[in-house]
């Protein structure tokens, strides 16, 4: 029989994968991989603040990530620095500050590895509730802004000219990114969350020819990664985050074979 903790991890992982699938497609389409990374790095600061103030972790991570996103948008307007430099600046400085704060919290036993790479044992019923309710809200909001967000991803001016609201959609999407990082941090760990967003979506891109199909395959890829990854993690006692990401890499490699095949067919 499977242990309770494992069932909990499976539930949590499936909840996360259902949300990272569609969001990940937009991360790939809008080229936001490093943006996701930056938000994820800043999550460490959120976690440490949660511990020191005895605050809910997911909520604290969400607030810090959203704050970092706001600072980024502000810096983009005020400085002439290129976007990637600003992203690097925020990612590493927030990570560094987070680690420094951990040093001050010597009275708390800190599982830094679990924080960075995810830990199945850490998932409790509360986390599952946060993941499923938070995830449902994220998906609902995404559905609501889908038209504007997608149209402006294809072409900003077309969307703006024909009565949609790309700027609002972009701002809401940024908040959704902070939210997904907040709810999935225990599962995958902050260094690997972006992988969970990008790799299944990249896999899906290889085998799909319409946006809807890509979202569907991305969700399926995420679910398979979670299931395969967690079972491997249980079997070989490896950290859950890396196991899930490794499983998604495996699926990505399989999708490359499909490309090779279709190129052969064309010739």
């Amino acid at each position: 029989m499977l242990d309770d903790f494992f069932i909990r991890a499976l539930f949590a992982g499936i909840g996360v994968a259902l949300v990272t699938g569609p969001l990940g497609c937009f991360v790939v389409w809008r080229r936001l991989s490093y943006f996701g990374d930056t938000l994820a790095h800043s999550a460490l600061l959120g976690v440490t603040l949660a511990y020191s103030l005895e605050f809910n972790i997911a909520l604290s991570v969400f607030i810090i990530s959203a704050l970092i996103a706001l600072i980024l948008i502000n810096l983009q307007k005020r400085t002439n620095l290129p976007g990637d430099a600003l992203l690097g600046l925020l990612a590493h400085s927030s990570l560094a500050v987070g680690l420094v704060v951990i040093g001050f919290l010597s009275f708390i036993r800190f599982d830094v590895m679990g924080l960075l790479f995810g830990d199945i044992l850490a998932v409790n019923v509360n986390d599952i509730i946060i993941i499923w309710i938070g995830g449902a809200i994220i998906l609902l909001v995404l559905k609501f802004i889908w038209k504007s967000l997608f149209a402006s991803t294809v072409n900003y001016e077309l969307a703006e000219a024909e009565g949609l609201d790309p700027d609002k959609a972009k701002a809401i999407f940024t908040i959704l990114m902070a939210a997904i990082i907040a709810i999935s941090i225990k599962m995958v760990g902050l260094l690997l969350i972006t992988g969970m967003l990008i790799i299944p979506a990249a896999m899906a891109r290889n085998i799909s020819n319409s946006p809807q199909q890509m979202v569907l395959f991305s969700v399926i890829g995420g679910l398979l990664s979670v299931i395969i990854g967690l079972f491997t993690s249980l079997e070989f006692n490896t950290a859950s985050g890396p196991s899930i990401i490794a499983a998604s890499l495996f699926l990505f490699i399989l999708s490359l074979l499909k490309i090779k095949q279709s190129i052969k067919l064309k010739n």
Partner: protein
Amino acid sequence: MGLENKILVKLKSAGFRLNDKWLVQGVSLQVEKGKIVTLIGPNGSGKSTTAKIALGIYKKIDGEVEKYTNKIGYVPQKISIDWTLPLRVKDFMSLTENLEDKTINEALSLTGVIHLKDKNLGDLSGGEFQRVLLSRAISKKPELLVLDEPVQGVDFTGEIALYELIKKISEDLNCGILLISHDLHTVMSATDHVVCLNGHVCCSGSPIDVAKNREYKALFGEQASQTLSIYEHKHDHIHTSEGKIKKN
């Protein structure tokens, strides 16, 4: 409906400045239902900028824009689509508004690209893509169409056919059209009102009036006002986009 309702968009001495440089200023014009207004002018004269002001893409503007419709179809001059997106022609058609399959088919047939419906946008040629862009803009049956060089890259016979189509659409849908074009002779014949731009409005009026205007001649040369012989040229057959010949 009163007279006011016939106006779809109205610019009142509108202008736009980018980094302290005026792209265009002092433009007043209005597009009414069922009328075609054409913007002409040399490169960099602010034609596309004027269109973007009318569409509300540029927000920090001088002067005023009054829009009386939200049903707008837009064909931008430059469009760069990111190919990280798997997007077929039919997905692109319902980009800003969900359309029925029948409506999509009709619109694609009008511009002669129905056979490209399931193709990936990235696989189209420049002219084919331009036809799809026009088709998408008209498919949602807009009240106002803004067409920024809608036939660029389209072959010559196709160009004439598309201009005829644009004229027909303005009559069928009774929509207003703001058209930007370089091809003076083909465009002017189908236009109700011409606005000649060069950073500001040089002259405006009916095509004949504008062609006679001194400033217009100064901008485009004496030759241009003579090419305004209205394009009357009939074939006994047309070429469909697959390269087949169809008798009229």
